[in-house]
């Protein structure tokens, strides 16, 4: 009797699940076409157990409970499928089901425990409530019900059997009905499919995949206006979100009280793809924007009905959310996609952003300067300027920081190091245009492509082996984003290049005289965008400096607030992001913050009470062994200015 009940329930649930999935798939299919192959499904196990688990394992507690819960559930359901679906009713298999459900029950118990106040004072605020609070109970009900009903030892009393059946029914509803209706368990199916059809397949081949995808402007591709403008696999990706809030906890804009929460953003897009309002969202809201006032549907413009523009403009594109996301969702692609539409079709980037974009269009630099002035800092340093008839080994591309008198000290220090290491190098001079990094992050793909094409045309007239830059934004653009426009170069960040010079003995440095407590701030565009966290630390170590790590460092470092054009769009919050970052440094008692990016330097130096901010190149230059008169002069000058 019970056996038939379970069999019937299994097939009914399977049917409901398939119907639900089919309906959900129709929603994904509202998106734009993207290349996919059915065989990608075979990649799921590796991607799940290796790539995804690599992220989840950063939090061992949840990793273990998830292994138990999901593993138990998958095993139990598979066994039910065999034993009851195929009507074998084997006692042996029932024992196996009992073991699987026990494991699932224990896992679900710990899931529940985390959400109560029993072991921790408070469940983390990043977790969503609402139907996600229901989930542990559903899972407990499912596992307990199944456990009781499949226990092969005793015949259950009728009342217990009825209760067990009801528990199983409730649990199955969550699993079968819930998925189709967009309940929390949809993450299981959408998540697995998302792994297979992820929009950035390179991520799973150990390749860096941080470059934005170009728009075909001639074909009038102007970014994301409505949810159905996303590719179908991006929509699928949003559906995979488990609302764990790790993105929220990592987001610098959220921490600063700006109206952005990456978790809510993804959920809003889920609302958009499935039509509805954000009223049922049960997590942290965007600061200052009440939940329940926005709605969307696949063919309705996202801004402002579903998401306010200020939410999109608050993002620093630091990729901390992407780095943290256990479901490997690409938040930054979504945000820049929507920004592109605002900028290209409404021209509505806020505050100082339009002026900067205009300057870029009219002068190819951000502040309307004379491009000749970019290398004025090098005039007295006897530095070669490249020309089509003077081939060099290393081409130094200074970037926008070159106009900044503060960052010029870093560049001068770098030049000094290059000369000491007898590197054959030249600067780009007036041929250099802004890389277009900021324009691209601000959604102005047209200006970015114009600048990229100009730069590539200029590079093509020159002969050099590699490009060196002290600006991680330049690094990212040239190295990762220019290839899509036919510009393929070996591009090195100065920390990487200097580390090579130190390692091969070309650059000889003495122990640093710096005695103050030092920390290193990882630039997002160097660490997360280019996976370079070792060279800066190796360099500091090579001159005898110990790096006291801040709580958030390396690939998980906290943004300075300077990326993505955020200082220009300047969305109001309760705090400023660089203040938070300096607080990080002060909390470990750091007196010197080593940096490796002009944006970080400017942002962190903008904080009034702070440790000293010094670029790696400046720290190294102070430890240079060679003593020529010109070099000494430089040391004196930089010390004076620093003081």
């Amino acid at each position, binding site marked *: 009797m019970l056996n038939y009940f379970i069999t019937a329930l299994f097939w009914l649930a399977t049917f409901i699940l398939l119907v639900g999935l089919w309906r959900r798939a129709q929603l994904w299919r509202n998106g734009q076409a993207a290349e996919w192959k059915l065989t990608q499904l075979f990649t799921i196990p590796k991607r799940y157990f290796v790539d995804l688990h690599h992220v989840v394992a950063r939090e061992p507690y949840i990793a273990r409970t998830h292994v138990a819960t999901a593993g138990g559930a998958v095993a139990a359901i598979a066994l039910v499928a065999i034993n009851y679906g195929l009507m074998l009713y084997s006692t042996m298999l029932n024992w196996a089901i009992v073991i699987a459900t026990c494991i699932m029950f224990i896992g679900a118990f710990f899931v529940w425990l985390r959400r109560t106040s029993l072991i921790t004072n408070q469940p983390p605020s990043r977790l969503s409530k609402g139907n996600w609070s229901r989930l542990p109970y559903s899972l407990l009900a499912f596992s307990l019900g199944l456990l009781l009903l499949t226990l092969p030892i005793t015949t259950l009393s009728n009342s217990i059997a009825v209760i067990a059946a009801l528990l199983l029914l409730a649990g199955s509803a969550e699993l079968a009905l819930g998925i189709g209706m967009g309940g929390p368990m949809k993450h299981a199916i959408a998540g697995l499919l998302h792994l297979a059809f992820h929009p950035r397949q390179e991520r799973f081949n150990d390749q860096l995949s941080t470059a934005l995808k170009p728009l075909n402007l001639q074909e009038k591709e102007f970014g994301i206006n409505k949810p159905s403008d996303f590719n179908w696999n991006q929509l699928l990706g949003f559906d995979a979100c488990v609302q764990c809030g790790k993105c929220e906890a990592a987001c610098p804009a959220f921490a600063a009280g700006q109206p952005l929460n990456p978790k809510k953003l993804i959920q809003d897009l889920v609302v958009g793809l499935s039509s509805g309002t954000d009223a049922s969202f049960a997590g942290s809201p965007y600061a200052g924007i009440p939940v329940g006032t926005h709605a969307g549907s696949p063919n309705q413009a996202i801004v402002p009905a579903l998401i306010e523009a200020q939410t999109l403009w608050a993002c620093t594109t630091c990729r901390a959310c992407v780095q943290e996301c256990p479901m490997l969702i690409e938040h930054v692609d979504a945000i820049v996609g929507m920004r592109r539409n605002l900028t290209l079709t409404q*021209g509505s980037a806020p505050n100082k952003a*339009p002026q900067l*974009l205009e300057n870029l*269009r*009219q002068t190819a630099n951000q502040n*309307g300067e004379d*491009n000749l002035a970019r290398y004025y800092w090098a005039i007295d340093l006897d530095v070669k300027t490249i020309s089509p008839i003077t081939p060099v080994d290393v081409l130094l591309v200074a970037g926008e920081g070159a106009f900044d008198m503060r960052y010029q000290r870093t560049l001068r220090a770098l030049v000094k190091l290059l000369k000491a290491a007898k590197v054959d190098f030249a600067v780009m001079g007036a041929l250099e245009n802004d890389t277009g990094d900021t324009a691209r992050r601000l959604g*102005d793909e*047209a200006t970015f492509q114009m600048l990229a094409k100009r730069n590539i045309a200029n590079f093509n007239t020159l002969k050099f082996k590699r490009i060196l830059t002290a600006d991680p934004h330049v690094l990212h653009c040239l190295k990762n984003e220019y290839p899509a426009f036919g510009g393929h170069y070996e591009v090195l960040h100065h920390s990487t290049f200097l580390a090579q010079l130190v390692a091969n003995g070309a650059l000889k440095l003495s122990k640093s005289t710096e005695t103050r407590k030092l920390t290193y701030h990882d630039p997002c565009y160097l660490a997360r965008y280019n996976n370079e966290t070792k060279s800066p630390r190796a360099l500091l170590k090579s001159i005898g400096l110990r790096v006291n790590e801040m709580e958030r460092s390396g690939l998980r470092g906290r943004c300075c607030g300077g990326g993505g054009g955020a200082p220009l769009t300047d969305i109001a919050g309760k705090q400023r992001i660089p203040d938070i970052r300096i607080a990080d440094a002060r909390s470990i008692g750091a007196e010197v913050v080593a940096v490796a990016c002009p944006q970080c330097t400017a942002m962190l130096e903008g904080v009034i009470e702070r440790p000293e901010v010094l670029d790696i190149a400046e720290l190294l230059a102070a430890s240079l062994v060679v003593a020529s008169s010109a070099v000494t002069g430089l040391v004196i000058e930089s010390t004076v200015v620093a003081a």
Partner: protein
Amino acid sequence: MTDSLKRIAVLVSAGKHPVSGQPRHCRNDSLALQMGLNLANDILVLHAGESENPALQDYLALGAPQINVIPTTDNIVNNLATQLTNTDLILSGTRAENGDDSGLLPYLLATKLNLALVADVVEIKAYENKIEILQFLPKGRRRRVTVCLPALVVVHPSAAVTLNFIHARQNLGSISTLSASNFDAKHSQSDLKQWHTCPARKPIKLAASRTLTGHERLMAAISSKAKGGAVVNEGNNVEKAQVILDYLREHQLIDF
């Protein structure tokens, strides 16, 4: 938006970035364009110059639905006037930024067409046969004036309109050249004296030549060397306040 205006025309000139020399829209004219767009969808945008000038692409992105290019023969005023005979309202920027940017063209045109003219306009409301404008005056002052149509309005750089550079609009707008035969190609006598240009330098201030006494020379030498501001460290608060008042009075920054 209003239906009461028969026809609105906006004059746009080709600008040039002062540093890079790159062609661009002239911001002052763009403000006039945006003001025109705020009044009506269908406006006549006129440019005297080359249709290939990349600056015109900027105006498309800034909202010009179509730009009519008039060839530059010697008498731009006459050429423009022939296109503007049946126009209710002509808008232009205060000053071009390329070539002869004297700010005279609107005045010459208004005189030629016998139009009313208001300058330094920051806001326009349109009514039947007339417009009400808000005029910029220095130190935060503003004046409201109604002007009977037809009229020419010169827009002030601080006009309360937002420029939206929208890339997608570049594809929507079009540029057409009006054939030269329609125009008065006769050389009219240029009423300005010959100008020649040279790269900018610091202008020399006109001052009366004078013979100085020894004491005056001494005083001049001392005062010109006094760089950096005065710092008042001592005295009580009333005295300090008095110093500030004296300073403000000395430089006529207050009138009490």
